[in-house]
Structure formats: structure tokens, C-alpha cells
């Protein structure tokens, strides 16, 4: 009985959605063309107040099941349950929840939003874009989460080798709407860094680290920018922090040793760093993605040892006349 009414609802909602977004149905439609209804914004306000985005890769703290909330459950309980379904990647259940939210709260953008996420999960990108556009129509304006989700879908659709400029536009819009949308900032930092647009990358890395000082990819990313700009002290600080956070990553210590040797001209410190890494590798506390990094470690240590042995000999030679004088 309930399912039958749901099927009817599906048909009705689909028709409503079709009329609402007519003119720009299809993949990655242009949300700039959308004229938002200020009255819709007013109606949606209670459903949007106080919400923000969370990373669904992170573990759930308080158990919320991907299941219908209790009979007395509020729309927030439904949104929480739908979020749990998105986290669980249970697209059929999420679609059902999206329909239910749309039915219960006509003015809420969350029903259409979850329908969009469910469609994307099922691989129906046309419907996903369409539903996401509808959720913004219902919100009466752009939503950070929707822009972010659109950007994710575009990125997935185009593949990593395609031009990311359109995706970047959406990500920037998402950040404009929610300046604390960390994954969007991190993604932009990496995309600009990949193309060696260092000032832009640095700006985004710093924004991430302002929000989350222990964000490892941004620590190592910003360290590389600092190395490129020959900013040795900052590179040492960032890499040292990255080593503390993830001591098992051999590459970070190799980079730190590189900075000591080449930028700070401190071979002793570089040697110390590599020796520590060698011990860590031998004890299984650190490993590298590539086998040649570990094999070249001993050779590098020997080279540094020889270079450091040569230095005191040179210094002793330099001291000879003074000693003779004194003697």
C-alpha cells in the first residue's frame, strides 16, 4: 500500500521536476541561467538554517541507521537517515528516502538533493543534474553542497585527464557559498599545483591548513610549493609536521633530507634524517611506494657520510698554520 503510493509520488514528482527545470534538462546544465524565486528561498529557509557539509568517508560518531526513522521522527531525522544511506551507498534506499522527504516537506530542497545523489550513485547523471538543479530551485538560490556535488559528477564524467576548468568553476562557487568546504579547497589546491600554478595552489593549501592544520595532503603539497620557491624553513616545518603525522610514509622523510641537504646546506641533518628513515624501514615502521627509493637509501647515506668525512679533513688543513703559529 505504502509502496504503491510511493510509485504514484514518483510519477508526480518526476512531472513536477520536468516542468520546473524545462529548458535546461540534460547533463551539466548551466545553473547560471536559473532565476531563483525569492519566495522559494523564504519557504526553504527553515530547512537550510544551520546545515553544513560533512565528509562521508569519515566514520559515523553517533549511530544513525539507513532506515526509516521512528513515526515521531522529524524531517531532520529523515535527512540524517538519508545521509547515512548516502554514506552506505545504498542508492535504492536513498532514492526512497528522497521521495519520502519530498513528499513530507514540499518546500525542502533535501528531497530533490538526495534523489540527485541517488541517481548519480546509480550512474544516471542526466537525472542527477536535473534533481540537483531542482533542489536549488526549491532552495531559492545556489547551495554549496549542490555545487560541490555537481563538480564531483562533472569530474567523474570527464575523467582526470580532461580540462578541469569547468569543474573548478563549480568548486569555487561551492567555496564562495561555504568557505569551510575543505575537500573543495583541497581539490582546487591539487589541481592548480598539478599545473604548477603555484600562487593559486599555495592560497588554497593555506586555506585548508587554516581550517585543519593536520591535513596531511596539504602539508606535503604546501611543502612542495615552498621547496619550489626555495623557502627552506617553511618546507622543513611543514615536512616535519607531515612526518610526525604519518611516520610510515618514507617519501616525506626523503624530501625532508633533500631540503636539509640542498636548500639548508645542512648535510649532517640530512644524513640524520636518512639514517632515521633507514632504521624505520628496517623495523617495518616506514615503507615506500617504490622499491628503488629504499634501495637507493644506503647509497645516499654512504655518499653523505663520505662528504661529511671530507669536511673535517679540509677544516684541519685550514687550521694548520694557526696551530703552527701557536706552537
Amino acid at each position, binding site marked *: 500500500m505504502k509502496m504503491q503510493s510511493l510509485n504514484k509520488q514518483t510519477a508526480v514528482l518526476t512531472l513536477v521536476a520536468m516542468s520546473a527545470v524545462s529548458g535546461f534538462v540534460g547533463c551539466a546544465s548551466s545553473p547560471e541561467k536559473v532565476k531563483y524565486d525569492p519566495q522559494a528561498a523564504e519557504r526553504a529557509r527553515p530547512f537550510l538554517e544551520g*546545515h*553544513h*557539509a*560533512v*565528509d*562521508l*568517508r*569519515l566514520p*559515523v*560518531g*553517533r*549511530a*544513525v541507521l539507513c532506515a526509516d526513522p521512528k513515526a515521531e521522527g522529524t524531517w*531532520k*531525522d529523515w*535527512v*540524517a*537517515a538519508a*545521509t*547515512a544511506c*548516502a*554514506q552506505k551507498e545504498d542508492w535504492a534506499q536513498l532514492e526512497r528516502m528522497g521521495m519520502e522527504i519530498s513528499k513530507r516537506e514540499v518546500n525542502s530542497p533535501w528531497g530533490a*538533493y538526495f534523489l540527485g*545523489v541517488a541517481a548519480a550513485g546509480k550512474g544516471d547523471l542526466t537525472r542527477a543534474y536535473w534533481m540537483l538543479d531542482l533542489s536549488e530551485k526549491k532552495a531559492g538560490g545556489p547551495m554549496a*553542497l549542490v555545487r*560541490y*556535488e555537481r*563538480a*564531483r559528477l562533472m*569530474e*567523474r564524467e570527464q575523467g*582526470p*585527464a580532461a*580540462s*578541469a*576548468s569547468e*569543474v*573548478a568553476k563549480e*568548486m569555487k562557487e561551492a567555496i564562495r557559498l561555504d568557505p*569551510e568546504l*575543505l*575537500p573543495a579547497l583541497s*581539490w582546487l589546491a*591539487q589541481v*592548480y*599545483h*598539478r*599545473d*604548477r*600554478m603555484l600562487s593559486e595552489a599555495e592560497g588554497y593549501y593555506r586555506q585548508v591548513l587554516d581550517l*585543519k592544520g*593536520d591535513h596531511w595532503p596539504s602539508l606535503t*603539497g604546501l611543502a*612542495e610549493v615552498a*621547496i*619550489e620557491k626555495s623557502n627552506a624553513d617553511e618546507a622543513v616545518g611543514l615536512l616535519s609536521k607531515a612526518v610526525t603525522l604519518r611516520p610510515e610514509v618514507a*617519501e616525506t622523510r626523503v*624530501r625532508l633530507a*633533500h631540503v636539509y641537504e*640542498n636548500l639548508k646546506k645542512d648535510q649532517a641533518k640530512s644524513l640524520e634524517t636518512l639514517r632515521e628513515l633507514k632504521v624505520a624501514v628496517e623495523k617495518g615502521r616506514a615503507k615506500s611506494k617504490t622499491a628503488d627509493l629504499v634501495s637507493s637509501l644506503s647509497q645516499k647515506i654512504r655518499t653523505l657520510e663520505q662528504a661529511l668525512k671530507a669536511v673535517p679533513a679540509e677544516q684541519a688543513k685550514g687550521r694548520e698554520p694557526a696551530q703552527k703559529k701557536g706552537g
Partner: protein
Amino acid sequence: MKARVEKIGIVLALKTEKLEKAQKAFQSAGKMGDTSVAVQSLAKLADIYLDYSKAVKGMTLPADVPEADQKAFQAEIEQIVLPMEEKGIEALNQAIESAKKAALLDGMAGRLQEKMDAVNMKSGGAPAIEVEAPPRMGPTFERRSVGLWTGGLK
């Protein structure tokens, strides 16, 4: 021996002819008005200049050619190779700058910069920058706490 020396002349003429043809094709493609195509054309242009210089540099005279002639030959080769290498680096530089200016963000500028670093024998051992796919996000009405999922809703 004379025949072998003449063969080098023929090979050089053929390579130069092919280089000119490819150069014209890439220059025309670069003027088509598409930024992405223009960047790729400049990158390919750089490739052909650098490949040409490498190939010409690798040409050797038979070992029985007198030393004086060997030296004269090498000097001639250098005369051909150096401007070509410079052209290659210039085209590569232009490709990098164009890619950055257009903000294509497709990784091309980074790949070209790596090539430039290799040409300049600049190897800092920098790791390749990997772009992580953006993770799935969801809404919550709980108090914001970056990096920690604070559970469901109240």
C-alpha cells in the same frame, strides 16, 4: 667513405625537410583559435625541434675519417643543433605559459614543466602531484567540527 659521408648529407636534408613540413602543420594548427589545440601544437613543435636536435647530435662520421674532419663536422653539427635546441625550449616555454594562462587545468602545464625540467637537467626529485577525487559529502545540522563526523541529527 665518400659515399657514407654523402649519405649523412642526404639524411640531414631529409630530416630538415620533414621538420619544416611538421613545423608548418603545427604552426597552422596553433592558429586555429582553440586554446587547447594551440597549447598542444606548441608542445609538439617543441618536441620536433628537440627530437631533431637529438637525432642530429647523434650523427657520427665513420671512424676512419681524419680527426680534423671529425672536429669540423662536429662544429658544423653544433651550429645546426644549438639554435634548434633553443627553439625547442622556447616553444616548450610558450606552451607552458599558454597552458597556465588559459587555466585549462588538465595537467598539461605540469607535464610540460616536467619535460622542461628534464631538458634543463633539473631534477629535484619532486613527487608527481596527484589530484585526489573529491569525496562524497553530505548535510548535517550538528555543530561544525572539521575532520570529525559528529554523527546524525538531533
